[in-house]
């Protein structure tokens, strides 16, 4: 299937990503199953078993080892991938940082699931938000198509010589990973040509040029190395639009840091991550029919955080409501905090409020989105207040 021409096929988000991985055909995949990421690993293991891909798979005994093996493989000079969710990501945490600071261009699809405890298997963003300062580039996708596209695009972004950083492509657990939607697949050869061959830098397997990875780096150099990492992250701002443009050429689909939806004349704007953007778009359309000047700013890229775009699209609005699918105990929710601080220097700051919703997979309905917008429109919205949508108090 999907050999020569782009095809529209109904698949789950997990399948879409597994196919992206099949087309990327990394040298090494090391993975450990966890709901709701499991189907990605299962589909991919089948591709390996059937000889559809040449990839070597490492069925590790834990996620900590998955990320550790990926670090080893990437340092050796291979294109390496893994995928995980929630507790698996938390178990990897130590090595997630090491992958980034070793500047290894690994792409990892993450299927968002609430972190324990209590244990839960459904979607929220607490897992990936806990990694937001790990030095990984982070995308949040709205649907299976975006999960597929951004997984492919991320290979080029991660491996770009001015970036060389790992990327997490985050899709909402069950909502995207297990929901079936039509996805337009690119032909295999087009994807292969787009991702090209990895150009390893300092591969361990090059015994003619031996290198030392992971030295002890003390107060005399550590800081400079961190500064370089900060710079690499900044370079994403320049490199991502270039890679996105090339992806547009092969797919006709445009990606950017954010997606403005009906923002031109919008007075009241909502900001969100992930699949909830679909619900918000629907509600915006509905409320616009009723004459409300509402709009949406969808955040695709959360790290590096697109501060300029936030200022550009949100300055001068009457109100901005930020939806967060995770909490930061004792502080502001992550997306809200980032949006708020981005607007500090803007000439005319909107009235700004935080709405936490959907923890542990609690659904978000059109009425919930309407409720938040209506608070804005009616002037009832209290600035800098933390509201909860869909919660029994």
């Amino acid at each position, binding site marked *: 299937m999907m050999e020569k021409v782009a095809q529209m096929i109904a698949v789950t988000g997990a399948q879409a990503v597994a196919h992206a991985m099949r087309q990327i055909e990394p*040298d*090494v995949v*090391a993975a450990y199953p966890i709901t709701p990421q499991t189907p990605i690993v299962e589909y991919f293991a089948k591709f390996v078993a059937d000889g559809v891909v*040449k*990839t*070597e798979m*490492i*069925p*590790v*005994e*834990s996620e*900590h*080892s*998955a990320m*550790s*093996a*990926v*670090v*080893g*493989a*990437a*340092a*050796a*000079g*291979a294109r*390496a991938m893994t995928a995980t969710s929630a507790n698996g990501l938390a178990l990897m945490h*130590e*090595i997630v940082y*090491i992958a980034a600071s070793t500047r290894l261009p690994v792409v990892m699809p993450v299927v968002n699931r609430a972190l324990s405890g209590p244990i839960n298997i459904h979607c929220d963003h607490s897992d990936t938000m806990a990694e937001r300062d790990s030095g990984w580039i982070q995308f949040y996708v709205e649907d299976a198509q975006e999960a597929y596209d951004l997984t492919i695009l991320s290979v080029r972004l991660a491996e770009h010589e001015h970036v060389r950083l790992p990327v997490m492509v985050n899709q909402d657990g069950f909502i995207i990973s297990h929901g079936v939607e039509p996805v337009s697949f690119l032909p295999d050869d087009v994807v292969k040509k787009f991702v090209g061959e990895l150009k390893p830098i300092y591969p*361990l*397997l*090059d*015994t003619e040029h*031996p*290198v*030392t*990875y*992971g*030295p*002890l*780096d*003390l107060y*005399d*150099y550590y800081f400079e190395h961190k500064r370089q990492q900060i710079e690499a992250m900044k370079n994403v701002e320049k490199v991502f639009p270039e890679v996105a443009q090339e992806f547009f050429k092969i797919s006709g689909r445009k990606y950017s840091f954010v997606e403005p939806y009906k923002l031109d004349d919008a007075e009241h704007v909502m900001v969100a991550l992930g699949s909830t953007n679909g619900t918000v778009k629907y509600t915006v359309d509905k409320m616009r029919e009723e004459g409300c000047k509402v709009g949406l700013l969808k955040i695709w890229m959360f790290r590096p955080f697109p501060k300029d775009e936030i200022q550009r699209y949100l300055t001068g609005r009457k109100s901005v409501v930020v939806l967060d699918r995770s909490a930061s105990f004792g502080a502001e929710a992550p997306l809200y905090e980032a949006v708020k601080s981005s607007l500090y220097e803007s000439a005319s700051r909107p009235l700004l409020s935080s709405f936490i919703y959907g923890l542990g997979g609690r659904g978000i309905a059109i009425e919930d989105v309407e409720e938040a917008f209506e608070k804005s429109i009616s002037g009832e919205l209290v600035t800098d207040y933390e509201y909860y949508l869909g919660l029994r108090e």
Partner: protein
Amino acid sequence: MPLTMKKLAEVFSHKDVGLTQGHRMCPGCGAPITVKLALMTAKAMGYEPIVAFATGCMEVSSTIYPYSAWSVPYIHNAFENVSATISGVETAYRALKKRGKISPDKKYAFFAFGGDGGTYDIGLQSLSGAIERGHKFVYILYDNEGYMNTGNQRSGSTPPGAETTTAPVGKEIPGKVQLKKNIVEIIAAHEDVYAAAVIIGDPMDFMSKIEKALQFDGPSFIASLSPCVRFWRIPENKTVEMTKLAVQTKYWPLYEVERGVYRITRKPSKFRPVIDFVKAQQRFRLLLKRPDADAIVQRIQDYVDKRWERLLALEQATKDKPSR
């Protein structure tokens, strides 16, 4: 064909070992001797070593940025994951070879090195997983019987009565009370593995086991008793001697298990009592001042005696009966 000292001298008169001068280990430390014997054997056999190292004394002292004492490719990832890391490297090698990106003639030796903390304790899961998956690598444990890098804390390898900072010999408690884990047995219990115990005080036995490990068609594990002069409180020039004493007292029997078949590679004609090993190290000095010292040392003696008898019996019982 076992390597000879002559052959080694020939090879290394014009080749460096892989671990060069300039590292900051204490003079007399057993760990670098273990590492060098392993690398020399591999290089003399025509292998290109790739080294993965777990966090610990040797790792921090050999790679203080911007310096590195390693002239072979080297990766340190974290403390507990050296086996998973080398699995990734070894798998990358197979993947790239399959795609024609690496010459099939190139002979790599994938080494993972870990201290006892990184092996018996925090890294045991990662090691077990890598062995179960059958990666072709040689794991080398340099066993100094405690967390030395962090200042002599107890590990699953610390023997009873040895002074450590987390199981100190106190007024009530005589230091660590539990026996050392039997790591060779733990590893040998995996299927399709070669596991052996060596000492730096017997380089011929050491090198022949590394040779076997490298030629073994699957994962292998070598446990090398590598005294820490600092926390065993022994003189700098007694490191090698201490390992010989460990063999002479049955404290560290030299043997190997190849797919379930036991072979004791050195059988001293006469043994010395374990108290000789204990007395030679100041880490036991506080124990020896206690009224229950004799009982504790006797317990170790009973243990090593029984273990030796069991090893002899296992050697008999498993002869010509490989698990596969």
